[in-house]
């Protein structure tokens, strides 16, 4: 997973833009996929990737090499995406209808409606994948994060624990709940 050499990293830390370009090139696909799975929308995913690399660039001299570079990268990208989801939630809760007797998952489902996907978003995915993407987008961010890191980015439980700074047992619990919630959401999805 470590695709950028230490020398490139070092040069990028001195402000060498060619070196930084190599870093962007090495991780842009992976981070765009991550952001799209979080945000279900291409334009917003692109903004999130840009914001991530901007933070990476400005903070690069503060990167602590005791951690793997990708761990640090994923931590920043995950934070950027979750921030965006929270802002979306804050905006949409202003005009959210009050519903009674709903569990938190449904709550999210109601309030966290993603912006309408563009035609290009729709083209990108087959029908089944859309269903899974929609269910993924309806998960609370805590579960969404571990599910994306585990199944989309294919990180190990240890790596996820490093990215999120939480014990492996916590990672597991969140994955279990996330899987269980996805099962419910997919069972509820209308058969099209």
């Amino acid at each position, binding site marked *: 997973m470590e695709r950028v050499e230490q020398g490139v990293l070092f040069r990028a830390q001195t402000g060498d833009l060619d070196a930084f370009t190599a870093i962007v090139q090495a991780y842009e696909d992976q981070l765009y996929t991550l952001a799209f799975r979080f945000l279900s929308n*291409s334009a917003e995913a692109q903004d999130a990737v840009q914001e991530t*690399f*901007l933070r990476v660039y400005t903070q690069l001299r503060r990167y602590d090499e005791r951690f793997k570079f990708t761990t640090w990268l994923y931590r920043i990208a995950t934070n950027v995406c979750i921030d965006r989801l929270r802002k979306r939630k804050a905006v949409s809760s202003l005009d959210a209808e009050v519903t009674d007797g709903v569990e938190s998952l449904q709550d999210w489902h109601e309030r966290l409606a993603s912006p309408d996907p563009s035609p290009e978003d729709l083209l990108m995915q087959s029908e089944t994948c859309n269903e899974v993407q929609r269910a993924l987008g309806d998960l609370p961010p805590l579960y969404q994060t571990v599910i994306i890191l585990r199944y989309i980015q294919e990180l190990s439980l240890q790596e996820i624990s490093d990215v999120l700074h939480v014990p492996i047992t916590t990672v597991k619990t969140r*994955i279990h709940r996330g899987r269980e919630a996805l099962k419910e959401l*997919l069972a509820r999805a209308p058969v099209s």
Partner: protein
Amino acid sequence: MTCEEAQRSMHYHFDGDDHLHVRKARAHAASCTDCGRHVMDLEMVEQGLRSLQKFAAPPGLRDRILEAVREVPQKRPLRGTGGLMTREQ
């Protein structure tokens, strides 16, 4: 083992664990219709997630990023963070 216990333990099976409680849960699910279906549903969830495609970053995104990066300065290393720069100097 109750169905509830089996369904909880089964998640460890999906994590790749092979403890005694996981083996007991597997044995339970093999002979219990509800738990057997539960396992199949979770397998479908995993399959669905794994079938999601990996994207290539859209054309133009890299240029946009590099343009934005040109506008901002890098922050100085924090003291004691052990960054590459501080170590080399």
